[in-house]
């Protein structure tokens, strides 16, 4: 599905998509590590205060980094290993 996306970025680097935009990663990185390496530390807003959140504990304990991966909600970006073609969506609602 997103093999094409990987090829339009850096030809040699695999990529997943974040809200439709390709993001290259180094094989072995988690989604959070790839996002952080690209300069993003926040990708979600809280239900109550609409505050930006992203990576905090980095080891799967705090649940601040929640994303939706291939339609499955509530995944901890710091624990999910990035794979080429994954479709990651961020934003509101992941902490429902």
């Amino acid at each position, binding site marked *: 599905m997103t093999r094409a996306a990987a090829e339009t970025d850096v030809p040699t680097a695999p990529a997943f998509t974040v809200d439709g935009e390709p993001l290259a990663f180094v*094989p*072995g990185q988690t989604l959070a590590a790839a996002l*952080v390496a690209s300069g993003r*530390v*926040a990708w979600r807003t809280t239900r109550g205060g609409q505050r*930006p959140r992203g990576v905090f504990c980095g080891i799967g304990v705090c*649940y601040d980094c929640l994303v939706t991966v291939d339609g499955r909600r509530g995944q901890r970006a710091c624990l999910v290993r990035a794979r080429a073609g994954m479709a990651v969506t961020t934003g509101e609602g992941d902490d429902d």
Partner: protein
Amino acid sequence: MTEPRELGGHAAMHEPLGLVVVGAGPAGMAAAATALDGGLRVALVDAGSAPGGQFWRHPPDDARDALPTEDLHHDLRTYRALRTTLAAHERTGRLILLLDHHVWTAARAADGFTVHAVDRGRPPEERAVVLRAPALLVATGAYDRQLPFPGWDLPGVLTAGGLQSLLKGGGAVAGRRVVLGGTGPFLLPVATALAARGAEVVAVCEAAAPSAWLRHPAPLLRNPAKWAEAAGYAGTLARYRIPLRTRTGIVGAEGDGRDGRVAVVRTASLDADGAPLPGTERRIEADTVGVGWGFVPQLDLLLPLGCGLADAGDGTTAAAVDAGQRTTVPGLYAAGETCGVGGAALALSEGRVAAVSVLTDLSAPGRPGVRPLAAERRSVARHRAFARAMAQAHPLPSAWPAWLTDDTTVCRCEEVTAGAVHAVRDGGPATDHRQVKQLTRAGMGWCQGRMCGPAVHCLVAARTEPYTPAERLIATPVTLGALADSVDSPTDATSSEPT
């Protein structure tokens, strides 16, 4: 069900498991290696993609070349030796190494324990795995202890352990200008690792006084390796020109209004109780903050098993164990930080001691002789004494709530403020974090109080009481499908061969 996992066709596969080890950090790896050498068949289960735990956190084996992180580690010689031993046993089928497996509960059974996990190695698929063994060792480590301050929920503020795990596990540097704060020796390897990867570490703010170590010289003198380690960090800090500011705290962080990321860190000199001294506040430009106040033992699997607890001496509660790392539950063992935070060297020794106890208690053939065990037990005693001295040198400052404002977020998940917690303390009956949870929802969100629990405890409970986490029946969220699988799937019948 899905295809059974191919574990190799060796005859040893059909032997029942003798031991399940949860957690493949230093304690779990050492315990598994010792138990395997002693003749047991062992399952070693970990949520990570490579053995090592947080201390030896590595990228997955197939990504080592793309993500070189070896220079960030300590004592890799021991790690490699353990990997070699474990790999040899895995080849013969005596070790079942289950990575990317999240254990969500363990229960007592008539003949031992049932351990329920989900295999998340092929997302988004989740597969239920059930393991049964007469002995269970919980070596699930610890996580960073946090104390809230205004702005700690801004993007760019991470736990010190989070910064380190991104570096060690994913080669990712979280920012360009970093301020670290909190207390304890762990801040130093984080600072040097960040600097080694090109980040500018503007300051390390250590709340404790530099003389604090000298109040308990004996345990320090008996651990010369720790002195060498400290001297090594001091040299590295000097080489990277990282200022170490003692009796200093991060008392606030402010965002830049654009993407909300932290832009300014406020620090202050602290008095002996940890209260900020008026007129000492400094504003430091930074895009990243790392904070850690020691660690909290990860007891999620142990609490529902009814394991007895002990005051760890650092404000946390740990598993109570005897000299052989036996918990109060027969057949249940604990090693490493679950027994109180004390570092990797202690965890290794405790893991070996625990495995020898398992071998002894199960009367397995070929158990190791007594002499190495005596040496390991001396090592445990020496390192435990060192850990106690460390805890006394790096306490939570009693006056830390002075940093809070009424609108400071305390519970990150449910966005409960310090003002709300104070209100149920001062105006209501709340005297522990469980009551605060019922009255304010603090600790009721996704993380189940793992982040805010120690802080809420400090705000409402008697100071002499250590923090004991709430019992959580499910240690990690699992899908209904995986739950259903573990109840009536074929895996249950062939417990030692997860499918």
